[in-house]
């Protein structure tokens, strides 16, 4: 498919090995950046490409880099967020296991642009095989002088380390990730200061998602204009949509930013399995507010989804069919967030647990009149009140599920 950029060669055997990657034109963008461009020009190109963060928040990547102070006494650091914990999301895993050198190339170019000499990849603990493959790729890159001292004999130096997480969702939040990387409890930090000024080990730090950095070699290799042509003016490039649920072909689909949700589910993923009917879709990972079946004629980009009261998040499309009771969806969502709350701040720690207890009672048939309103009220007391974005992530799906499927939820209550 012509839209494919990141996943273009994923079918190729042994793409994860450096020789195959080089045969496919790998590390050419790095050569171009190091030999023909200044760091400022690299950053400028990425800014012009309107590359937005692929981790969930969608912050413009080039702008993030330029927040790092130019002249500081401390070293500047790069952290790659490969924690990929948002339920329904598995895109980074594909990049890491099929094409680790693409990420490494993106990391080196980014480090060159920002003036960074040490980078870390924080990978979720469950990705053991992926981490091993990544380590092997890094070893190859050192051998070929794409990492280490005097990269490509241009005098640029970068060391890259892989750090494996221990399985906490919260460590995907960038400041909790930093704490965990420092060997502490994965508790989010109070912002400001932002990581760009005070980050890992108190040093200015850039934190980017795997997919974000994997796009960088294409922007440098083919130019910002080429990249923009694959997406939207304020949201360049493609997105890897991960489709899961009872569809004919679940999996990843790399498509232009702005492809419609209906197209993703019914053309690319082959629609629902025979005999199943669409009930609802969670369009951007579990924390994104749910869309009803009649709301899927929507462009999958940050702004269109925000206008519809949901979000693109990690572009993980979770399909729910008619047979699935909404209370079961609620139960899964509530159990997950109650389990994954780090416990640091009050509303998330106690609110997620309270909500889970109510939903557990509801699912067991003990629901009472007023419970649905109570869920919305409690979730609203979490939303916007917590230390890190996880509060919102936990509250938004509860509110949207309760509001959009109130009739179904209330039909099961006692005392009707």
């Amino acid at each position, binding site marked *: 498919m012509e839209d494919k950029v990141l996943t273009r060669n994923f079918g190729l055997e042994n793409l994860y090995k450096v020789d195959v990657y080089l045969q496919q034109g790998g590390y050419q963008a790095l050569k171009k950046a190091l030999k023909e461009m200044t760091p400022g020009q690299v950053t400028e190109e990425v800014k012009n490409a309107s590359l937005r963060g692929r981790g969930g928040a969608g912050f413009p990547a080039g702008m993030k880099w330029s927040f790092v102070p130019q002249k500081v006494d401390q070293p500047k650091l790069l952290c790659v967020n490969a924690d990929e914990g948002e339920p329904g999301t598995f895109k980074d895993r594909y990049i890491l296991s099929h094409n680790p050198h693409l990420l490494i190339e993106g990391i080196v170019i980014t480090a060159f642009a920002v003036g960074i000499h040490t980078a870390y990849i924080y990978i979720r603990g469950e990705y053991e095989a992926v981490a091993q493959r990544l380590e092997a790729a890094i070893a190859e890159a050192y051998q070929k002088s794409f990492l280490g001292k005097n990269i490509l004999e241009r005098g640029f130096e970068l060391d890259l380390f892989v750090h494996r997480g221990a399985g906490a969702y919260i460590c995907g939040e960038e400041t909790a990730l930093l704490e965990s990387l420092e060997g502490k409890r994965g508790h989010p930090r109070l912002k400001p200061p932002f990581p760009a000024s005070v980050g890992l080990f108190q040093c200015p730090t850039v934190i980017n998602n795997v997919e974000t950095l994997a796009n960088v070699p294409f922007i440098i290799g083919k130019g910002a204009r080429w990249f923009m042509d694959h997406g939207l003016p304020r949201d360049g490039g493609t997105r890897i949509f991960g489709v899961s649920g009872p569809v004919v072909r679940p999996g990843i689909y790399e498509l232009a930013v702005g492809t419609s949700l209906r197209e993703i589910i019914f053309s690319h993923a082959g629609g629902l399995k025979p005999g199943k009917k669409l009930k609802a879709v969670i369009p951007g990972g579990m924390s994104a507010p749910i869309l009803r079946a009649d709301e899927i004629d929507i462009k999958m980009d940050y702004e269109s989804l925000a206008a519809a009261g949901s979000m693109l998040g990690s572009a993980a499309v979770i399909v729910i069919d008619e047979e699935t009771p909404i209370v079961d969806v609620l139960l899964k969502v509530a159990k997950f967030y109650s389990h994954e709350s780090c416990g640091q701040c009050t509303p998330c720690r106690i609110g997620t647990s*309270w909500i889970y207890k109510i939903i557990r009672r509801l699912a067991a048939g003990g629901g009472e009149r007023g419970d649905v309103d109570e869920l919305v009220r409690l979730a609203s007391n979490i939303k916007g009140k917590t230390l890190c974005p996880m509060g919102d992530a936990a509250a938004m799906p509860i509110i949207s599920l309760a509001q959009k499927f109130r009739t179904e939820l209330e039909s099961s209550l006692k005392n009707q």
Partner: protein
Amino acid sequence: MIKIVIDNKPVEAQEGQTILKAAQQAGIPIPHLCYHPAFPPEGSCRICLVEIEGLPKLELACSTVVREAMKISTQTPRVRESRRGVLEFLLADHPLDCPICDKAGDCNLQDYFQEYGAFESAFKEAKERREKKIKIGNNLILDRERCVLCTRCVRFLTDTTKTQELGVFRRGIRSEISTYDAELVNNNYSGNLVDLCPVGAITDAQFRFKTRTWFLVPAESICPLCSQGCNIYLDYHPGFPRVSGTAKIYRIRPRLNPDVNDHWICDYGRGGYLSLLSDRWDKLVWRKGDRESVLIWEKALQILAEKIRTLHVIKRTAKIALILSSWLTNEELFLIKKIFKDDLHVEKIFFADPKPGTGDGFLLQPERAPNVRGAKEIGFALNSARLEDLSQHTDILIIFGPFLAELFSTAELKTVFDSVGTKVLITSRASGLESLVDFVLPASGMAEKSGTLTNKNGKIQSFSAVCPSCGDSRPEWSVLVDLAKELKVNARYYSLLANPGAIFRELAKEIAFFRKEPLWIS
């Protein structure tokens, strides 16, 4: 200075100041649980959220730094609703055992509920059950059901003592404060955890279930157990009118003084001073041979004055020896200097102080007396008492304080004392010396008198009587003034010194060191 507006009131704030501090300075309270002025903002309790004009979300008052022309609202329905929401969450799992909680009456959570909550509980689920009586230190009990996870205790042990005995363990609703394995909180500042805890989660094993906080009257005082001079509160129960013996100091807490002790006091002072407060000698005794007679103060002072005056008249005051203590106040030491050095020219003046201990490099000093510096500045040489000094040609020996008993054994002292004509002991504590002397004059304890002390850095600090003098006891300064009047050497001068304030003014007039700051509030 930065000009901001809080609740429509123009307020001046300092550059870099947080909203919470600026509001506090302007007399606008903002509720907070995890924030404590001794530590950087934590931002985890979420009860201090306020509205800032132009910002979509509520922002933390404890960590948001003020900007010029910032408009802040702390009482809008949205802010109050948010506080109520946080309280509702905190109380959902709270055991609500205020009737048996030491913190009741003194508890931030209770206060905030009165002000911002006051709702009917909507929580219909089962409360989390947690351990309620965990020994986390020699004197500390942790109740995990009451804990609001503000982590002040963890941060104190991380930032201040750097001993790190406590941490947060497990996650989410199961998060809990705990020691690492069975290692207890073991440092000289552990008592501060009780004061730091905004709720009743960490309680003092000594204070537990002894009284209710609303009976206690906090009185400002100074800890006398070392030369640091930490500022403290003595929490005094004035007693129930019809129940005798109920008046008592139940608790010692630190009192903020950034120059001396910041927010803290050490366990040595906290526990040590509390036990001293109840360890009192309060009987006036005159012992002749084996017979003990009870005396009244006037008579005792007449007898003593007569003995001293006789030696003075025949110019034999060299036969008088004094043993002083650095536990005496500046005023008392000054009176002793005036009476015995200046008026009577007594030369044998020695000191008996508690043996020095080891300092801990923070607040606790090796000098275990509160007024060593004061004694030096008043002009005493602080020669430690030696047995041979006392035994030679002494007719009258006057001992202030119980510390001679710490320096010498009873047998040693008995031998020396046998050759001394009249032995007088002025003490507030029993030490064994009482049975070796002819007169025991009961002195008021530190909490029963007023005066000033000079700490090791030369800071002069005043303190006032917290409770009435116990039994027959009287403050040393008043005993000295009355004795001086009886001596009739310079009676007019002493008759004007009716209180420690007047004595301090004389002291400041005479010795420049004490003229530093007008601190005496009479």
